[in-house]
C-alpha cells in the first residue's frame, strides 16, 4: 500500500498522481509536482523559455561534439567572413575563429556564471534572511541594515568596484556578482520567515526540543525555497547581462575566452563594416536572458501565485 506503484494495476498513473488521498509522502510530492507542471504547461511562453534553457544546458554539456571548429583555432586567411559562408555558417571573427563554435563554447561560460552566482548568492541570502527573521531584535536590525546598504548601490556599479579590488577575471567577476546579488534574497527569506515563525508547528518543534539551527534548517528554510527559486530564476537574466557587461568592459572573462560579452566588445571595432561579428553574440545573450525571464514568469505563476 505504501508503494504508489502497488495500486497502479487498477488505475492509470495520471489518476494516481492527481489523487486527493495519496498513500505515501512520495506520492504526495510527485502529485504536487505534476499539478504544478500541468499549470506551468498551459503558459506557452514559459514552456518556450524552459525549452531554450534546456537547449542551453544541452549545448553547454555537449559543446565539443556540437562545435564544428576549435573555438580558439585562428585562421587569418579566413578572417571576418560573413554569415552563410560554407564551413563557417555564422561567419568568423577578426582572428578567423569560427563564430558558431565560439558561441557554443560561450554557452558553457554563461551557464557556469549563472549557476555559480546562484549557488553562492542564494544560500547567503537564505541564511541571512531566515536568521534575521527568526531571531528578530538586534540581530535582525543589524543584518537588515547591512542588507539595505548593499541594496543602496546599483548592482553593476558595486560589482565593478569589487572587480576593481579583486582584479579582472572570470572567477572574480562571479564572486563580485554573487556579492551584489544576495540582498534581495535575504529580504525575501526574512519576509517569509516572519510570516511563519509564530506558526503552531514551529512552536511544537520548539517544545519537542529542536535546536534553533534545526528549526531554521528543517522547518523554515524549505518553506522559503519556492519564492527564492522564482526570484533567482527571474534574476538569472540580470546576472547574464551583468556578466556580459563586465566581459564587455574587459573586466570579466579574459581573451581568448569565448565569452559572449567579450565577443561583442571585440566585434565592436568592426561593426560599421562587418556588422555580424558584434551582432550575433548579442542575439545569443538576448535569447538566453529572454528565456530565463519567460521561465521565471511561468514559475512565479505556479509556485508563488500571490505575487503574480
Amino acid at each position, binding site marked *: 500500500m505504501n508503494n504508489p506503484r502497488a495500486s497502479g494495476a487498477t488505475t492509470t498513473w495520471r489518476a494516481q498522481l492527481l489523487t486527493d488521498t495519496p498513500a505515501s509522502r512520495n506520492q504526495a510530492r510527485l502529485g504536487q509536482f505534476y499539478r504544478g507542471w500541468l499549470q506551468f504547461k498551459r503558459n506557452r511562453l514559459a514552456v518556450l523559455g524552459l525549452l531554450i534553457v534546456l537547449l542551453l544546458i544541452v549545448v553547454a554539456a555537449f559543446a565539443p561534439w556540437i562545435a564544428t571548429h576549435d573555438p580558439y583555432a585562428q585562421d587569418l586567411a579566413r578572417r571576418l567572413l560573413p554569415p552563410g559562408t560554407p564551413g563557417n555558417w555564422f561567419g568568423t571573427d577578426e582572428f578567423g575563429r569560427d563564430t558558431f563554435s565560439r558561441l557554443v563554447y560561450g554557452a558553457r561560460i554563461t551557464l557556469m556564471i549563472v549557476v555559480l552566482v546562484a549557488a553562492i548568492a542564494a544560500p547567503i541570502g537564505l541564511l541571512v534572511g531566515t536568521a534575521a527573521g527568526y531571531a528578530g531584535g538586534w540581530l535582525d536590525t543589524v543584518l537588515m541594515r547591512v542588507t539595505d546598504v548593499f541594496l543602496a548601490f546599483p548592482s553593476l556599479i*558595486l560589482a565593478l568596484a569589487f572587480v576593481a579590488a579583486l582584479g579582472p577575471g572570470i572567477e572574480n567577476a562571479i564572486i563580485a556578482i554573487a556579492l551584489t546579488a544576495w540582498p534581495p534574497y535575504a529580504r525575501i527569506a526574512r519576509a517569509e520567515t516572519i510570516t511563519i515563525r509564530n506558526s503552531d508547528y514551529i512552536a511544537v518543534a520548539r517544545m519537542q526540543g529542536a535546536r534553533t539551527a534545526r528549526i531554521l534548517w528543517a522547518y523554515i528554510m524549505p518553506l522559503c525555497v519556492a519564492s527564492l527559486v522564482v526570484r533567482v530564476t527571474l534574476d538569472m537574466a540580470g546576472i547574464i547581462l551583468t556578466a556580459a557587461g563586465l566581459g564587455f568592459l574587459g573586466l570579466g572573462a579574459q581573451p581568448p575566452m569565448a565569452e559572449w560579452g567579450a565577443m561583442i566588445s571585440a566585434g565592436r571595432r568592426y561593426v560599421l563594416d562587418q556588422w555580424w561579428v558584434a551582432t550575433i553574440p548579442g542575439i545569443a545573450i538576448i535569447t538566453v536572458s529572454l528565456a530565463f525571464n519567460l521561465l521565471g514568469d511561468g514559475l512565479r505563476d505556479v509556485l508563488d501565485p500571490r505575487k503574480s
Partner: protein
Amino acid sequence: MSVASGGAGALRGVRRGGEFALQVALTLLGLLAVTFFIGRVVPIDPVLAVVGDQAPRDVYEAVRIELGLDRPLWVQFWLYVQKMAVGDFGNSLVTNRPVLDDIARVFPATLELATIATIIGVALGVPMGIAGAVYQDRWPDQLVRVIGLVGYSVPIFWLGIMGLLVFYGILGWVAGPGRLGIFFEDIVPAVTGVILIDSAIAGEWEVFWNAVSHVVLPAAVLGYFSIAYIARMTRSFMLDQLSQEYVVTARAKGLSEARIIWVHALRNISVQLITVIALSYARLLEGAVLTETVFAWPGLGRYLTTALLAADMNAVLGGTLVVGAVFVGLNLLSDALYKLMDPRAK
C-alpha cells in the same frame, strides 16, 4: 490648549526630522563602510591597488603611511570617514587631480544624458502603460508586454552598438560617438556643464543642434530601459484604479472614457508614478556606465570604467560612493515626495 498641542506637534516634527537625519547619516556611514571594505580589506595589498605595481619603493612607503595601514583597522576606518566627510577622496592616478574635482567635471554630462533619457521614458512609458491597462490582454497590452520583456533581456551596450550601426553607420540620421563634433568643441563657455543649456545661453544654435544630434541616440538607448520599467508600473497602477468604484460611478454619470482615464485615474496614480520615475532615474546611473562607454560620452560612467581599467582605486571608490549617495538621495526624495503628496501616507 491649542498652544500646547501646537508645541507638541512641533516637537514631534523635530523628533521625526531627527530620526530622518539619523537614518540618512547611518546609511551614508554604511556606504562608506562598503567602499572602505572594498578598498582596504578585499585587495591582498591595498597599497598596490592604489599605486599600481610599477611604483618605486619610496612612493609605496609614502602611500602606506598615508593610508594608515600600520594602524588598527578601526582607526583606519575612522580616519577614512573623517577624510570622506570633508570631501577628500584622494587623487586620481590617471588625471593626477583630486577625485572630487574630476567627478564634479564629468557629472553634468551624465546628468544631461540621464535627464533626457528619463524624459523619453516618461513621455513614452506612461502612455504605453495606460494603453496596456485599458486594452488589458488585447494586442496593445501584448505589444507593451513584449517591449518591456525585451527591455529586460537585451544587453544595453549591444543595443547601443546596434543603434550606432543603423542610425549613424547606415542611415546617417544622427552624429556618432562623443558629446560634440570636433569643430564645435570649446566654442561655448561652460556655465552649467550641460552643453544643451550652455549653448542655448550663449545663443550658439549650431552648437546646440550638434549637441542634440549627439545626445539623441544614447539617450534613446538608455531611455528604452526606463520605458520598460515605467510602462510596467503604470500598467499595474492603472489596472488598480480602473477596477475602483469611482470609475463605475464616472461611467454611469456618462463621462467620456478619455476623461475618466486621463483626468480622474491619472491624477490618482500620479503620486505613485512620481516615485517610480525617481527610482528609474536612479537606475539609469547604472545603465549609464555601459552606455557612456559605447558612445564615448565623457560622463561619470566612462570616468569609472577608465579608472577601472587603470586600476585607479581612489577614482573607482570615489565614483562608486557618489553613485551610491545619489541613489540613496533619490530613494529618500521619492519617499519624501510620496509622504508630501499623499495625505494617507502619514
